[in-house]
């Protein structure tokens, strides 16, 4: 519910990317089992050289491998803001594990919360935000009360007048 998970606006820690982009992922650990079948994808990911490829392409990230007996495979990513994110890669194919690695590389470490909008800009308008004066003073003209602006439900005065009419009709 929105009490527990209020919507947030898209943001980057310290306006990352405005002038210079810093990779927010600091450490990534692949925990896997050397024998169990649900770690097969993780093992293939390592053996195919994709893990080394990721580590060489991202010297800013400390990459660790952690073989653990009889445990399901997990990807642990630690970010600059101190948060830790876990991705359970139980029985994933090697390609999916590779995609999770590169996804963590692009994350900022902020909590995954529901967004108001998927976009955010401090300058959303290039032509200028619409005002009633954008196309000349063509809206908002006229005198009140306007016969076109009739409310759908009767006002309190009208209700009382209706009641009075009904009552006098009944009396007479």
């Amino acid at each position, binding site marked *: *519910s929105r009490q*527990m998970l209020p919507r947030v606006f898209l943001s980057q820690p310290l306006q990352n990317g405005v002038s210079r982009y810093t990779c927010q992922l600091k450490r990534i650990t692949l925990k896997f089992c050397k024998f169990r079948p649900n770690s097969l994808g993780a093992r293939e990911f390592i053996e195919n050289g994709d893990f080394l490829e990721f580590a060489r392409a991202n010297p800013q990230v400390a990459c660790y491998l952690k073989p653990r007996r009889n445990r399901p495979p997990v990807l642990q990513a630690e970010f600059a803001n101190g948060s830790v994110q876990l991705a359970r890669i139980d029985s994933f194919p090697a390609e999916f594990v590779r995609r999770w690695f590169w996804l963590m590389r692009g994350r900022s470490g902020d909590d995954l919360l529901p967004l108001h909008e998927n976009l955010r800009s401090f300058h959303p*308008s290039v*032509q*200028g*935000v*619409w005002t009633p004066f954008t*196309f000349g003073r063509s809206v908002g003209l006229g005198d009140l009360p306007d016969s076109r602006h009739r409310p759908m439900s009767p006002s309190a005065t009208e209700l009382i007048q209706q009641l009075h009419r009904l009552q006098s009709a009944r009396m007479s």
Partner: protein
Amino acid sequence: MHLTCPLWVRRIPKIYRNNDPFYLRNLYLQFSFLFRGRSSRCFRLAEQRVIKAFQHMNAMRAVRKDRFKQLCDERIDAACAQHGIPGKMLVDGLGRMNIQLNRKMLQQLAIYEPYSFKSLTDLVKQYHSELGIVPPNAEPPAPVVTRGLLQSPIVPGNRKYYE
């Protein structure tokens, strides 16, 4: 109750399956911790409120989409009314010309890019005037050079006619 040995063994709760009532109640209270009053503290009240909150969350998913669509329609209608055409005509006309802008983008353009939106309304007016349909209360649009392309837009399928 007298049970045979195998059934007695099965009845013993497993070590790693927590049967203590605390765990279920804590689950509900985790969801209710921001509620008002005792519903946030007492399980017997929280259970009812949390179940109702889940029902609301479920029901609101479809309603939220409908409401957003209504909002977009209202905004497009209001913006089009300033240029003299109904909002439905804009959406329909753009679709016929294979200009793929959905309601969400149209309302964003209407708010943040009003001159682009005006040019879209001009396009739609031109399209309809080429067909002989004159929108009521409409100013004549700025001259739009179409070369007949509005009636037969270049879509991936008919590109060969223009080569």
